C-alpha cells in the first residue's frame, strides 16, 4: 500500500483546503463589515444624512493628517490586548468576560508603580510598571481559573462578576490612598515624565506600545501553535476527555490561561496609563473590555485577525469622531457602526456554526458508524 502516494498533490490539496477555509472566513468578515456599515448607513438616512457621503468623510477624516492616522494606532493598542484576553481563553473553550476588570487592575498596578518609582530611569519604571500590570491582573484573573478548576465554577459568570469587584476596588483606591494630592476628583496625580511611554510620532498619541501589542499578538500566536502550552490548550479546548486520558492536567491549563488573559488585559491598562492618559481616572475607558470582545469576534479569535480588527474599529472611531463633530450626526453613530458590524459577524458565525454543527453532526454520525 502506498499511503503517501500523490503526496505532494495531497499536501497541495490540504493547503488549498486550509487556504479556502481562511478565505471563507476573511470573505465572511468582509461581508459582515459591509452589511454592518450598510445597516448603520440606513440609520443615517433616517437622520437625514447621506451615508455614502458620511463614509467618504469618515475615511477622509481618519486619514486627513498624521495626527489622525497616528490616533488610529494609539486607539487600537489597548483594543488588541483586551481582544487577545478574550480570544486566547476562547481557544481553550473558556469564556473570559472579565477583561474590563482585569484592565482596571492593570491600570491600578501601573499607576501605582509609576507614581512610587518615578524617580528611577525610564527604562526601569516602564519595565516595572509593565510587569506589575501584567502580574497584578494576571493573578487577579487566575482566580477565575482556580475556581473553575477546583470548584467547577462557571468561568463566564465568575469573570463577569469579577469586573464589579475590580470597579469597587478602583473606586476605593481613587478616592482614598491613590487620590490626587488636590483631593478633588477621583483620579490620581499625573505620573512623572520618566514613566511615560515615548511617542513614535512626536506630537501624537501614537506610542511605542502599539508595537508591543502587536508583539503580544505574535507571541500568543506562537504559544498556540508552537509550544507545549498551546498544544495542551488546544487539546483541552477540543476534547477535554482525550486531554485527561492523555495525562494533561486541565486544572493547570485553566489557571494558566486565565493568568495570561488577565495579564494581557492588564497590559492594556499599562498602555493607557503610561502611554495615553498619564494618570488613572475613575471608571475611564469603560467599554474597553466589551469592545475587546467585539474585536476578538471580528478577528475570529485569531491573534493576527485581532490586530486587523482592532485597526478597523479604531479607524471607525477616529474618522467617526470627526464626522460627528462636523455634522449633525450624534456621536453614538460610531458605536452603532461597530455594534452592527459585530452583530453581522455574529450572524455569519451563527450561520457558519449551523453549517459546522451540521458538518459535525455528520462527522459524529460518520464516526459513529465507522467504529
Amino acid at each position: 500500500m502506498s499511503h503517501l502516494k500523490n503526496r505532494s498533490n495531497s499536501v497541495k490539496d490540504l493547503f488549498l483546503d486550509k487556504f479556502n477555509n481562511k478565505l471563507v472566513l476573511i470573505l465572511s468578515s468582509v461581508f459582515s463589515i459591509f452589511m454592518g456599515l450598510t445597516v448603520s448607513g440606513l440609520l443615517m438616512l433616517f437622520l437625514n444624512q447621506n451615508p455614502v457621503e458620511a463614509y467618504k468623510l469618515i475615511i477622509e477624516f481618519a486619514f486627513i493628517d498624521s495626527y489622525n492616522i497616528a490616533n488610529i494606532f494609539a486607539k487600537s493598542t489597548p483594543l488588541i490586548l483586551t481582544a487577545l484576553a478574550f480570544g486566547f481563553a476562547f481557544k481553550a473553550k473558556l469564556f473570559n468576560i472579565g477583561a474590563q476588570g482585569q484592565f482596571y487592575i492593570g491600570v491600578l498596578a501601573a499607576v501605582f508603580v509609576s507614581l512610587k518609582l518615578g524617580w528611577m530611569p525610564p527604562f526601569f519604571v516602564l519595565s516595572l510598571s509593565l510587569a506589575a500590570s501584567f502580574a497584578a491582573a494576571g493573578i487577579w484573573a487566575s482566580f477565575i481559573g482556580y475556581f473553575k478548576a477546583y470548584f467547577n465554577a462557571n468561568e463566564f459568570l465568575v469573570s463577569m462578576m469579577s469586573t464589579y469587584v475590580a470597579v469597587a476596588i478602583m473606586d476605593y483606591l481613587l478616592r482614598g490612598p491613590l487620590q490626587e494630592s488636590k483631593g478633588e476628583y477621583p483620579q490620581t496625580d499625573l505620573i512623572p515624565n520618566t514613566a511615560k511611554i515615548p511617542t513614535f510620532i512626536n506630537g501624537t498619541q501614537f506610542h511605542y506600545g502599539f508595537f508591543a501589542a502587536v508583539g503580544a499578538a505574535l507571541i500568543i500566536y506562537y504559544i498556540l501553535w508552537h509550544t507545549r502550552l498551546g498544544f495542551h490548550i488546544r487539546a483541552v479546548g477540543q476534547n477535554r476527555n482525550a486531554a485527561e486520558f492523555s495525562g494533561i492536567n486541565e486544572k493547570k491549563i485553566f489557571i494558566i490561561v486565565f493568568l495570561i488573559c488577565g495579564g494581557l488585559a492588564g497590559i492594556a491598562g499599562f498602555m493607557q496609563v503610561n502611554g495615553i492618559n498619564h494618570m488613572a481616572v475613575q471608571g475611564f475607558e469603560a467599554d474597553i473590555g466589551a469592545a475587546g470582545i467585539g474585536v476578538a469576534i471580528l478577528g475570529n479569535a485569531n491573534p493576527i485577525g485581532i490586530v486587523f480588527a482592532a485597526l478597523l474599529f479604531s479607524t471607525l472611531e477616529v474618522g467617526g469622531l470627526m464626522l460627528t463633530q462636523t455634522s449633525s450626526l450624534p456621536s453614538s453613530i460610531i458605536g452603532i457602526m461597530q455594534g452592527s458590524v459585530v452583530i453581522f459577524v455574529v450572524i455569519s458565525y451563527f450561520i457558519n456554526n449551523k453549517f459546522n454543527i451540521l458538518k459535525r453532526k455528520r462527522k459524529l454520525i460518520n464516526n459513529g458508524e465507522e467504529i
Partner: protein
Amino acid sequence: MKYLDNVFIEMENINKVFPGTVANDDISIKVKKGEVISLLGENGAGKTTLMKILYGMYKADRGEIKIDGKKVNINSPQKAKKLGIGMIHQHFTLVPVHTVLENVLLQLNESYAPKYVENKIKEIGNKYELVVDPSALINELPVGFQQRVEIIKALLGNSKLLIMDEPTAVLTPQETEKLFKFINEFKSEGNSVIFITHKLNEVMEISDRIIVLRDGKKVGSINKKDADREKLTQMMIGREFDFEVKKNEATIGKKIIEVDNVSIVGETGNQILNNISLNISAGEIFGVAGVSGNGQEELADAIAGLKKISNGDIRLMGKSIVNLNIREIINSGVGYIPADRHKVGLVLEMTVEENLILKSTYGQKYFNKYKLLKSKKLKIDTEKKINKFNIKVSTSKALVHSLSGGNQQKVVVAREVTLGDKLLIASQPTRGLDFGAAAYVKRTLEKEKSKGKAILLISNELSEIMELSDKIGVIYEGEILDIFDRNEADLKKIGLLMTGVRGESFEK
C-alpha cells in the same frame, strides 16, 4: 418489467472526491425491495461515504439517485427520512447528558407526546428484545445499550430502507443474533437493508446480495449463494489473504501487573467491580471475556488511573500504582487502546501528528527544554509510524476526523503500542477494522507479547479472545467468575459464564 418494479433505490454513477482521495469512483448500485445487501470493503474503501450520500449527508460530485424509478434529490437526512431511508449510527448521535427518551424525542421531525414516545420505545424494545429504560441518561449507559437507542431511533422513523453502518461492532453475539432476527422480520415486510460490516460470517449469514468496494470503486455484486469467504476476500483486496495470526509461544516472564482484590463502588453504592484479582506476566495475553457493560471498561480505566478504586491494590512491576496520576502511569509504561476512540482516544480536530504525540508532550521528546515544539522530529517520527502501522492518510498534517474509521483506530494503536512498553491494555482493539487491519492489529499484539510485554485484552468478540489469549477471565457484573488457561478453556462454559450462569448451576 417485473424486475424493475421490484427495485426500490438506484444510485447511478456516484462520484465523490475529498481533497487527496477519490472516495467514490463512478459507483452504481441497486437495492430491491425485501432485500438485504451487505456492503463490503477494506477500511477507507468508501462504504461510509457512499451511504452518507444516500442519506443526504454528503452531496455527490456526480451521479444521481432514483427511488421507485423516479429521480430524487436527497439534500438532507430529513429529506432522506421523508423518502423512507433510515440510518443506524453507532455512536455519538446521542446527546450524552440527556435521557434515552429525550434523545429519541430530539430526532423526531414532528412533535409527539413524550408519554406516547415512551410507550413506543418500550413497545419496540419488547418486540425486538432491545429493552432500554427510557429515563436512563445516555452517558450512564454502556456502549452496547447506546447502540440499542440508535436502533430504536431509526425504527421510529418508518423507514423502508435501513442503512446500518457497522451496527454489530459493539454488539455481543447474542445481541447480534437479536439484530439479525429483527432484520429478517423487517425484510419479510418488504423492506430493504444495507448492511456494512467487516465480519464475513455475518455477511454470509444475513445478506441476500453482496456488493464489494475497493479503493472507491465497485468491484462487483454477487448473490450470497454464489459467494464464499475466499471469493469475497479476493474481491475485496484483489488477492488471496492469509487470515491466520500465528501464535507465538513467548516465554512467560515475571509478573508485570497484579490486580489484587480490586473493587469499585458506584455513587449509589452499586458494586461496579467486585473483588477482582488477576495477574499478567511478561509475554502473556490475558483476555477478559464478557458481555459489554459488565465492568471491563472500568477495570481497564482503573489500571490506567482514570478511575479511582475503592478497595484493593494494583501493582506494576511490584510497585503499587493506585496513587499515581494518569501521567505517571503512562510514563511507567502502560499503553491503553480505549474502546471509545472518539470520546477519549483522539482529538478529532487536531492533526494526525498531534494525536500521535498526545501522550508524549511531557519530557523532552517532542518539546525542547524551552517547551517549544520540535516540528522536524515530529514529522519524521510521524511518517515512520504512518508507514509502520499502514495508516492511510494523505499527509501527517491531515486532521484526524478526515480519516476513515479504521485508520483513526490505527492512529490510536500506533500511539499506544509505542507507549506501553510494559503493559498494553487493548479494549476492543479491532472494532471497526477490516480483516486485513484487524489481522494486523492482532499480529501487532502477538508481536508485542513476544517482546515481553504483558497484554490485557478486552473484547466483545469471544473468537478474538480465544484466538489470542493465553489466559481467559470471564467477567460478569463486575466480578471475575473464573479464569482458564487457554488450553483448558471450554467455549460453551465460557459462553454460559458470560451470561452469569456459574459452574455449579452449569453442572446441574
